[in-house]
């Protein structure tokens, strides 16, 4: 009966929790009426979403001539937003799969929310290639199906087709991983809620889960296999996104460092967005015992590591350009740092390289306001990174007579705002209807009832 909580390590979850306290803490947030701050937040986010819907509707009816693109700059805001959102998604898979394989137990407090963020971010990302097609009602032409046009098959040698397969596989696998991880918690909700539509829904979706250990044994195997599959998948997805650029012959894009550079950048930006959201959720949903300074500190260390990789990539690009002795390559990088878009370049450098350096200090890592500010800077910096890569490489190409500039129209800005609206609205809905912390996993890392 007696359980002696051992604390050789600092406990992951504070406050001497027992499994039933975990259930109550996490579920009570769903059973309460929404707070005023939640209503205010959803009012703002759904207004942003509405603005985005209007903009997208207008540009689909009128055509993508409503964007600021021109003959020289054929990719700009849309693809920047696409790469930005796909990158955001990667941290969820990092936390749920990679850290699972590395047996990082602290991940249990944040994996549910991070995976939700992944799924929502990939939805946001998916909008941009879709509307960029110009005729989104023909989007199904991307899929290889027997058709009446020949059948004319898709070109499997094209990186854009690879991208379609990568993003759709990534979305599917992330969603399945998230759902499988949620089945035990849905069963907990089903057995706890009073009769009503939520109980019915939880009962339907929990698939008759009864906590049988024979099932748990297979469940753990499935979870491990999914983690093992999602890890190479997440690397492949951003590698393929980078190939959209690297396989073309544009100076600044056509380089072999792009895949690792993009993967590191994706994890960096995603981890920063996870922190932004978790710091807000921790405060507003009173989850300080579950998402402790230890968790925040661990995520800050990942930010320093991946930020270092990104800095290394920025430097390597310059050295490669210098060493290549190719005047186009050298010009592209000089133009990035000193040309008309140098302001964007230096925002990128100061946000992504300089701002995370403060996290080397423990005092900064344990000050939630400082960490929050740094994550906001990184979110901005990583958006600008994609903008810099895309626009500065295009706007001054091989032929000086083609040189031009680019500025977004209000339609493009409204679409970006709308994607943030979609992201925040869906995340707020997630916080209301789904346990934000994986209860069955957190219960397994408590020190309650365990001597080891």
């Amino acid at each position, binding site marked *: 009966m007696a359980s002696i909580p051992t604390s050789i390590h600092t406990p992951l979850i504070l406050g001497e929790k027992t499994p039933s306290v975990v259930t109550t803490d996490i579920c009570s947030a769903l059973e309460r009426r929404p707070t005023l701050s939640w209503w205010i937040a959803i009012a703002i986010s759904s207004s942003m979403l509405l603005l985005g819907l209007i903009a997208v509707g207008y540009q689909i009816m009128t055509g993508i001539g409503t964007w600021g693109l021109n003959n020289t700059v054929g990719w700009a805001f849309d693809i920047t937003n696409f790469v930005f959102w796909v990158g955001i998604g990667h941290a969820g898979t990092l936390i749920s799969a990679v850290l699972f394989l590395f047996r990082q137990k602290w991940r249990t407090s944040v994996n549910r929310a991070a995976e939700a963020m992944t799924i929502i971010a990939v939805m946001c990302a998916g909008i941009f290639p879709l509307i960029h097609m110009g005729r989104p009602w023909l989007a199904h032409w991307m899929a290889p199906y027997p058709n009446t046009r020949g059948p004319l098959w898709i070109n499997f040698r094209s990186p854009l087709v690879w991208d379609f397969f990568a993003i759709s596989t990534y979305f599917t696998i992330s969603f399945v991983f998230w759902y499988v991880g949620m089945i035990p918690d849905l069963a907990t909700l089903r057995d706890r809620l009073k009769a009503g539509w939520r109980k019915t829904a939880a*009962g339907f979706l929990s698939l008759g889960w*009864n906590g049988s250990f024979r099932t748990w044994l297979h469940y753990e195997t499935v979870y491990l296999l999914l983690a093992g599959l999602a890890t190479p998948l997440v690397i492949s997805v951003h590698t393929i996104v980078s190939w959209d650029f690297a396989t073309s012959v544009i100076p600044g894009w056509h380089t072999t460092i792009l895949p690792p550079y993009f993967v590191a950048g994706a994890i960096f930006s995603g981890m920063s967005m996870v922190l932004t959201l978790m710091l807000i959720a921790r405060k507003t949903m009173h989850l300080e015992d579950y998402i402790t300074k230890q968790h925040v500190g661990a995520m800050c260390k990942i930010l320093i590591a991946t930020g270092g990789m990104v800095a290394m990539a920025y430097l390597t690009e310059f050295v490669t350009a210098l060493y290549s002795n190719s005047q186009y390559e050298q010009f592209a990088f000089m133009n990035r740092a000193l040309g008309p878009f140098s302001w964007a370049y230096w925002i990128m450098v100061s946000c992504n390289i300089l701002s995370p350096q403060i996290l080397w200090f423990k005092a900064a890592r344990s000050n939630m306001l400082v960490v929050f500010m740094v994550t906001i800077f990184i979110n901005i910096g990583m958006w600008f990174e994609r903008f810099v890569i895309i626009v500065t490489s295009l706007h001054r190409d091989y032929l000086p007579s083609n040189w031009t500039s680019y500025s977004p129209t209000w339609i493009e800005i409204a679409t970006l705002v709308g994607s943030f609206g979609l992201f925040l609205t869906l995340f707020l809905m997630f916080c209301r209807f789904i346990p934000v912390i994986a209860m069955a996993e957190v219960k397994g890392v408590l020190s309650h009832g365990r001597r080891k």
Partner: protein
Amino acid sequence: MAEGSRKLASDRRFLLAVFTSEDEILAATTDARDRGLTIADVYTPYAVHGLDKAMDLRPSRLPWVCFALGLAGASFKVWFEFWTSASDWPINIGGKPWNSLPAFFPVTFEVMVLFAALSTVAAFLLGRGLLPGRRAKLASPGVTDDEFALVIEETDASFCVDEVTARFRVMGATYIEERIEQESI
């Protein structure tokens, strides 16, 4: 007479013991196995590590499903890419060869992951009878919250309920109940 004896034969008797912590359920399960009792199942709110050894369970064979279907998915996709690009309607794109195996690799990889993951999950759900809308049969109402339930099947004629009950009480069981399950004939 005949009906009564058949009914008796099909009755399955179970002993349910509910514990409140991981250590207790591990100790009780190990103890039950060591004394040769038949462990029907153990119900826990989370995956208790070491319980598979305590229950003497074999490792899951789902990795084979994952491997086989992943391989099948990848093979199918390579064949499909060759067939569409080189056989059914070959189109010259930038002078690239019909047989562009390196360029076929990324999509093949994605499809392999898709097949492997979805088939593993499907095999798991079907194998364990987890289907949408299915009603859960709970050993004890708290097993999805904070209770750990050990269910022993009374397979042996010499099974002494009182003795086992007393044993579980000492090991910390908070609730013990004998259940009889009648199988419909």
